[in-house]
C-alpha cells in the first residue's frame, strides 16, 4: 500500500518500505519466497463485520478471520498486513494482486471458483435472515413484495437474485451500512451468513433471526489468486496441521464464544482440518 494508513496504525510506520505493491508492474501473484522476503503477507479482511473481521476501539483488526490470519503469518514468519475490503471487492483484490490472501468470510461458490482458488474450508455457513421482533420474518415467502437488505457481493445477494425474484433487494457496499439501514427501519429484514446474523441479533435486542438456515450449506475458505498453487498448498497444509491442534475451536472460543454464548454448538460453525 502506498500512502499512509489509518486502519492499522501499528503498520503505518512500516509502510514506507513497502511501496512495492504499486511499483511492481504486474498482476501475477507473489510466490511464497517473495512474500517471505518482503517480510509481509498482504491479507484482505473485513473491517466492519464483527465478530469475524472488524476494527476494535483501539484501531486493531480483530475477529475469527483475523485470529486465523495472525496465526498464518506467524507460521510463515512474516508480519500480516491487512487490507480492508468490501464484500464485492474480494475477487478483484486477488485478480489484480492487491493482496496475497483473502480471509474475509469468503463463501465458496461455483462462480467464485472460476475466478479464484479456494483452500480447504475453516467454517461452514448457510444463509440466515434477521428481522425486527415486532415483525419477524420466518419464511422466505413472507418477504414477497417486501424490502430485504443485502450487502453487495455476498452469497445472500446471489441466492436471492436467483431464487426470490419478488423480493425487493436494497443493496449496500458495506456491512456497517446494511446493519444501520436495518436499525433505522429502511428494510423489513436483512440476510447474510447465518453465523453473522445470529451473532448480530444476540447483541442487538429487538431483533430476531427468524430464518436460521436458508439455501445450501456452504463452506468458508481462504482464497488465493487463481493458479497460485504454491501458496494454496501451503495454506492447505497449514489447515491440516492446525486441525490437529484443534486451532479453530480455540479461535471460536476467543472470538465467537463471547458473542454466541452457549446457545450455539461450536461444531455447527467450525471446520477443523478442512473436513466438513
Amino acid at each position, binding site marked *: 500500500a502506498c500512502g499512509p494508513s489509518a486502519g492499522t496504525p501499528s503498520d503505518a510506520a512500516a509502510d514506507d518500505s513497502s511501496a512495492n505493491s504499486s511499483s511492481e508492474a504486474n498482476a501475477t501473484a507473489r510466490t511464497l519466497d517473495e512474500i517471505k522476503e518482503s517480510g509481509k503477507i498482504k491479507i484482505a479482511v473485513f473491517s466492519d463485520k464483527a465478530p469475524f473481521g472488524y476494527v476494535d476501539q483501539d484501531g486493531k483488526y480483530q475477529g475469527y478471520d483475523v485470529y486465523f490470519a495472525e496465526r498464518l503469518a506467524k507460521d510463515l514468519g512474516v508480519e500480516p498486513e491487512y487490507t480492508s475490503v468490501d464484500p*464485492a471487492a474480494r*475477487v*478483484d483484490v486477488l485478480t489484480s494482486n492487491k493482496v496475497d490472501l483473502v480471509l474475509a468470510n469468503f463463501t465458496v461458490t461455483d462462480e467464485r471458483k472460476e475466478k479464484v482458488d479456494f483452500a480447504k474450508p475453516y467454517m461452514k455457513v448457510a444463509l440466515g435472515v434477521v428481522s425486527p421482533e415486532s415483525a419477524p420474518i420466518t419464511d422466505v415467502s413472507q418477504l414477497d413484495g417486501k424490502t430485504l437488505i443485502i450487502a*453487495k*457481493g455476498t452469497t445472500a*445477494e446471489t441466492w436471492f*437474485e436467483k431464487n426470490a425474484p419478488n423480493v425487493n433487494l436494497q443493496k*449496500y457496499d458495506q456491512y456497517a*451500512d446494511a446493519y444501520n439501514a436495518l436499525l433505522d427501519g429502511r428494510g423489513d429484514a436483512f440476510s447474510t451468513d447465518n453465523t453473522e446474523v445470529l451473532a448480530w441479533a444476540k447483541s442487538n435486542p429487538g431483533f430476531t433471526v427468524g430464518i436460521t438456515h436458508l439455501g445450501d450449506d456452504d463452506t468458508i475458505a481462504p482464497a488465493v489468486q487463481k493458479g497460485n498453487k504454491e501458496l494454496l498448498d501451503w495454506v492447505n497444509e497449514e489447515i491440516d496441521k492446525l486441525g490437529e491442534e484443534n486451532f479453530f475451536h480455540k479461535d471460536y472460543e476467543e472470538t465467537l464464544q463471547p458473542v454466541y454464548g452457549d446457545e450455539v454448538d461450536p461444531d455447527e460453525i467450525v471446520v477443523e482440518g478442512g473436513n466438513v
Partner: protein
Amino acid sequence: MFDWSFVHRYAPFFVNGTLMTLFISIFGILLAIAVGLVCAGIELARIPVARQIVRVYIELSRNTPLLVQLYFLYFGLPKLGIVWSAEACAIIGLGFLGGSYMAEAMRGGLEAVPEVQRETAYVLGLSPMQSISRVVLPQAISTAVPGIVANVIFLIKESSVVSAIALADVMYMAKDLIGMYYSTYESLFLLVVSYLVILLPISIAGTWLERRFDYARR
C-alpha cells in the same frame, strides 16, 4: 476476454440505472435551482439575518463532500428520529450541495448587469418591476447560463455517489454486477457508455443554450 453476451444481457439493468440517475438528478437540480434562486434573492436584497444564514449555508455546502452529506442525512439523522427515504436524502443532498453553486452562478449573472442598465431603465420611466423583468433578468440569464449548465453537469456527475445509500443508479449497477458476476470489463464498459449517453447530449445542449442566450455580447 470481453463477453458481449453479458453486455447484451445486462444492458437493461443499466437502462434502469440511467433512469434512476436521471430521476435523482432532475429533482436534485430543480431543488438546487430553487435554493439558488432564494439565496441569490436574499443576498441581492440584503435581507439582514437571512443573509448571514445564506452565507453560512453556502460555506458549509461548498466545503464538504456530497458523500459525507449523504451519510449524515441517511445514517445520521435517523438517530434523531428523522428517517428520510434514500431518494429524499439524495435529492435533498444534491439540492443542498447544488444550491450554493446555483446561487453563485445566479448572483454572478445579476451582478454582471451594469448599473447603467438599471439607470437607463429608470430614466426611461420603467417601473422597478418592468426594469427587472425587461432589462435586468434577461441579461442576467445570459451571463448565468454557462455557469448553470456547468452546475447541471457537475450535479449529474456528483449523483454517482448516491449508490452508497442503496439507490440503484448507474454506479450501483456497475458495482453490483462486478460483485455478483465478477464481470469487471463488461460492467465498466456499460458504466462508461451509460454516463456518455446521459452527459454528452446535455453537454451539447448546454453549448447550444449558451450560444442561444449570448445576445448580451457587447
